C-alpha cells in the first residue's frame, strides 16, 4: 500500500466536494475490491473518501413499483431484505451467491456496480431488470451505464447514491462460477416486466451486455426451450485459462436457459 489521506464525510455533498477537489481521490465503500488493489499496489489514490458515515447512502425500500436500494447496502442485506425477497426474489438470490460470507458482509451494491468488474454479479441484475442508477447529480438508465470493462458512465467525482429496480413479473438468474476465483465465468439474468423482456449476460464478455436475439425469442415464447438453440458468437468474448471464448459462448446459451427456468 502507498500512503494516502483519509476522509470520512457524513453527507453526499461533502463526499462529492472532496472527490471533486482531488481527481486522484477515490471513494471507498466495502473496500473488498479497492483494498486488495491498494495492498497489491495496483492503485495509488492520493486520498480515500470513506462513504460509511453517510446515512443517505443506506437503506432498502419499496417505492410503488420499484425497489430502491442505497449504494451502501451490503450484499447480505440485499439477500436478506424482505422488500427484495418479496418483490424481486431473483435479485435477493443473486446477492446471496456473491463471494462468501465475509464478502457479503462487507461488499456493497454501489461498490460492485461502480466497479463494473466483468465477472461481477450485480451488473447483470441492473441491466437485466432495466434499473436506473441514481447519482449525486443525475439518473442514468442501465442501458447507458455500463460502458466497458471496469468502466461506467460515472464521471470523475460522481457518486453512485442508489439504484432503482423496477419490479418484474418474472426474473431469474443462473451463473457458472470461475473454478478459481468463484466470480462469474458466465451468467445470465433474465426478466419480463415493465422494461420488457431482458437478457443480460455477465462474465462472458468484457462488459455485461444484452442478448437481443434471446430477448426476442423469449418475448415470443417465455420458456427455456425458446433460447436453447440460440448460439452466442464467441467473437469478442473473454478468454482465459479457465474458459475460452468458445466455451463461454456455449455457456451463454446454457445459463440463459437455466435463468429462464429459475424465473419460472
Amino acid at each position, binding site marked *: *500500500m*502507498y500512503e494516502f489521506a483519509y476522509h470520512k464525510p457524513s453527507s453526499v455533498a461533502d463526499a462529492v466536494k472532496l472527490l471533486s477537489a482531488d481527481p486522484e481521490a477515490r471513494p471507498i465503500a466495502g473496500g473488498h475490491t479497492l483494498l486488495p488493489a491498494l495492498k*497489491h*499496489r495496483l492503485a495509488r489514490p492520493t486520498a480515500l473518501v470513506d462513504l460509511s458515515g453517510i446515512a443517505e447512502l443506506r437503506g432498502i425500500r419499496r417505492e410503488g413499483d420499484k425497489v430502491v436500494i442505497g449504494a451502501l447496502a451490503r450484499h447480505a442485506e440485499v439477500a436478506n431484505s424482505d422488500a427484495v425477497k418479496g418483490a424481486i426474489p431473483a435479485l435477493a438470490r443473486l446477492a446471496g451467491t456473491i463471494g462468501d460470507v465475509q464478502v457479503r458482509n462487507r461488499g456493497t451494491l454501489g461498490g460492485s456496480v461502480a466497479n463494473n468488474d466483468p465477472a461481477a454479479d450485480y451488473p447483470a441484475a441492473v441491466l437485466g431488470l432495466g434499473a436506473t442508477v441514481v447519482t449525486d447529480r443525475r439518473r442514468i438508465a442501465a442501458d447507458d451505464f455500463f460502458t466497458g470493462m471496469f468502466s461506467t458512465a460515472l464521471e470523475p467525482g460522481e457518486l453512485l447514491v442508489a439504484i432503482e429496480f423496477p419490479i418484474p413479473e418474472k426474473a431469474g438468474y443462473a451463473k*457458472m462460477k470461475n*473454478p*478459481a*476465483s468463484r466470480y462469474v465465468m458466465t451468467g445470465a439474468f433474465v426478466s419480463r416486466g415493465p422494461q420488457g423482456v431482458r437478457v443480460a449476460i455477465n462474465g462472458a464478455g468484457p462488459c455485461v451486455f444484452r442478448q437481443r436475439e434471446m430477448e426476442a425469442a423469449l418475448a415470443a415464447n417465455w420458456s427455456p426451450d425458446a433460447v436453447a438453440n440460440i448460439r452466442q458468437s464467441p467473437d469478442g468474448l473473454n478468454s*482465459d*485459462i*479457465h*474458459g*475460452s471464448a468458445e*466455451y463461454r459462448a*456455449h*455457456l451463454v446459451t*446454457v445459463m440463459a436457459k437455466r435463468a429462464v427456468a429459475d424465473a419460472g
Partner: protein
Amino acid sequence: MAQPPPQRSPRRREDARFLAGRARFLADAEVPPGCLHAHLVRSPHAHARIRDIAAGAARAAPGVAAVLTGADLAADGLAPLPCAVALPEAARLVVPPRHALARDRVRHVGEPVAVVLADSPAAARDAAERVAVAYEPLPAVVDARAALAPGAPPLHEEAPGNLAFAFEKGDRAATEAAIAAAAHVVALEVANQRVHAAPLEPRGALACFDAASGRFRLLLSGQGLHAIRAQLAAVFGLPEERFHLVAPDVGGGFGLKNPLFPEYVLALWAARRLGRPVRWLAEPSEEFAAAVHARDAHAAVRLALDAEGRFLALEVAFTAGMGAYLSAGGPGSTTNAAAAAFGGVYAIPTGVLRARGAFTNTAPIEAYRGAGKPEINYAIERAVEEAARRLGMDPLALRRRNMIGAAAGAGGFPHRTALGTTVDGGRFAANLEAAERRADRAGFAARRADSARRGRLRGLGLACFLETARGAPNEWAAVRFAPDGGVELAVGTQSNGQGHETSFAQVAADRLGLPVEAFRLVQADTDAVRYGNGHGGARSLHLGGAALVEAIGAVLAKARVLAAHLLQADPAELAFAAGRFVVPGSGREVALRALARAAADPAGLPDGLAPGLAAEAMHRSDRVTFPNGCHAAEVEVDPETGVVTLLRYLAVDDYGRLVNPLLVRGQVQGGLAQGIGQALCEAIAYEAESGQLLTGSPLDYALPRAADLPPFEVVLDEGAPTAANPLGVKGCGQAGAIAAPPTVMAAVLDALAPLGVTRLDMPATPERVWRAIRAARGG
C-alpha cells in the same frame, strides 16, 4: 494408583492453541530491536540476461540500510544452493549453480535479483520499486518435453539439451521382449500436471547473527531443519554447528518447506553483513511464483498382458520438468521414489522405469505430499483401467487377478517387485473387496439411471494405491525426565500440523505409564534436537516413533538400575507397570517420577550411574512401510457445462496398527482434499511463449474448497501391522494425495464412458470435460 486406561483417540493436544488463535507462527514472533525488513526484487522475465542493476536510487531511499545484488553475494564468496538428492551415477545428474541472487541471467519469473533491507516492510518495498534492472529477454521454454526437443532455448551451459538427468531402473531388455511377445499391450500417455502445495502459512525467516560467538540463528517456517542447516553450512562454507535453526508453529508444508530457499540465505547473509537482525515474510503472490512447485511429470506407459489379462511387463517413461534449477528434493520423485512403488499393488514380473528431467523456465520442482508415488500410482492405475476397457474386462476383476497376494498365481508376501522393492504385507485384496461392497457397486446402475433422468452422467471409479513410506532412513529421539516433573520427548521428526504433540505423547504414555499430559514435545530446534530428518515421506511414527521406543527402552533400563538400588532388589526381579517399579509380592515399589527426582542427586546414585534420568537413541531402518488401500469415488457430470460434482468418496486403507485413529483420519482427509484438488481443479499454468505465470494467486489457481468436497468415509483396516517398526505402524500422511487422483479420474471417465470418451487429463476442469464430451459426440 493405577492410571485410567489410555484413550485410543484423544483429541489433539495442540488444538487448544491452534483453535483458540494462540499458536505462534513465524509472523507472531517478536521483532527484535533494530530489525531490518527484507524485500526481494524479482525477475519479471522467464528468461533474460541481466545487463545492469541500478540500485543507487533505492539505496538513497528513506529507511534503506542496503540493497544487495548477485555481485555482492559473489564478492562475499557464498556458494550456490546445493541439491541434496542422490541419483545413481548413471543418471548423470547435472546440478547447475543456483545462487541466492541471480548473477548474469534469470531463468524463471520470480527469481531473486536483488534484496532491499530497510527499517520497515513498506520502506523496503518502496525502495525495491526503485531498483532499475535492465534485462535482455531471451526465448523461454516452460514445458518439459518441449525443453528436451532439439532447438529448445538452452538454460544452462552445464546441461546440454536442457537434460537434468536420465534415470533408468529395471530390466529394459526383458521388458521389451515381454512387450513384443505379449497377447495385449496397452500404451497410453498420462500426466501429473504441475501444482502448488499452497500451505496456508507462507514461508518466512527471522535471521540473527551473533558476532561474539560467530553463530547464526534462523527462525523459519520450515520443515526438516537439520537438512536445511546442512545446506546452509555448504552455502556459507561454515560448520553446521554455527547455525541454530528453530521453527515455531508451522502452518502446513507438504514438502514445499523442505528445502533451503534463497531467501533464507539472503536473510542470514544480510544479518551478518549489516550486523542487524533481518526479517522476511513471503507474500502469498511470492509463494505462487517463487517458492517451489510440484509434480510436472508426463508418463508414457506400456503394460503388457497375456491372453487371460495377467500382467507381464510394465514400462513407464517419465519426462519431468525440474524448473529452472534443481531444488533440494526435486529430482527424487520420478526416479528413486517412483521406482520404490513401481508396479503398485500388482505383481508384475518384469519392468523398467525411465525418467528424464528437464530444465524449464519455471519455478523449481520440489517434493510434495507423496512425491513420486502419486505419479507412479497414477500411471499404473490409469493403465489398468485402460487395459480393462480394451480387453473388455471388469476393471476390478483385472485388478484381483493381478494383485500381489492374490490367489491366482501372483504370489504372496513378502513380495519382491520387478524393481527390487520387498513389500512385507498389506490388505490389498481385502481393501478392494471392502471398497467394492461399501461403495455399493451393485446398486450403481440404479443410481446412474436416476442421474440420467436428471440429465446428468454418473460415474463410479475405484483405484488402488501402494505407498512406500519412510523418507530418510535415520532418526533420533530422546526422553528426558526434567527436574520440574515434566518429561521431554525430543524427536528429529517435525510436526507442522499433523498432531505429533498428541501421538508421540501417546506412544510414550503407553510405555512409561504416565498420562499424556506429562509429556512435552521438543522438535524443530537444531540445538535442542541433536539430529533429525524432519518430516517427509510419511516417516514420523515409523522412524521417529521407533527411535522414541528405543530411547524409552534405554531410559527404563537406567531407571530399573536406580529402582533396584533404592528398593534394594535385584534389577531383574523388578516388574514395571503403570509407571512404577515393583518388587513382586513385597509391597515395595517406586514411581518413575520419584526415580527422576532421585536421579537428579548424584549423592544417592549407585556407582557407575550418571545423574539424571534421560536417554537417547539413534535409529536406523532400511525398512520401508507399505501403506495401501482401495478408494472409490462417485461423481456426477453436468454434460451441458462439463462441471464435475464429487458426490461420494470412500477410502479403505491399511496403515498397519494405529496409534490414534482420529489423527489418521485427519491425515487421510487432508491428503484426499489435495489429491482431489489435483484431479479436478489445480494446475499451475505458464504462458508457453513468454513463460509468464498465469496462476499467480488463488484468484487464478483453483484450490478445492470445503464445499466442493463430500464427507469422506475413511475405513481403517488394522489387520496387517508391519514388523518394520516396533509400533506396527505404516505412514498415513501422503496416502490421500496418492490415491485420490486415479480414483476421481476413474469415476469421471466412467461417467463419460457411455459417450465414448476414453481420454482425459487432470485436472478435469469444466471446459476440459465439456470439450471431451463434444469431441466424443463429434461436435
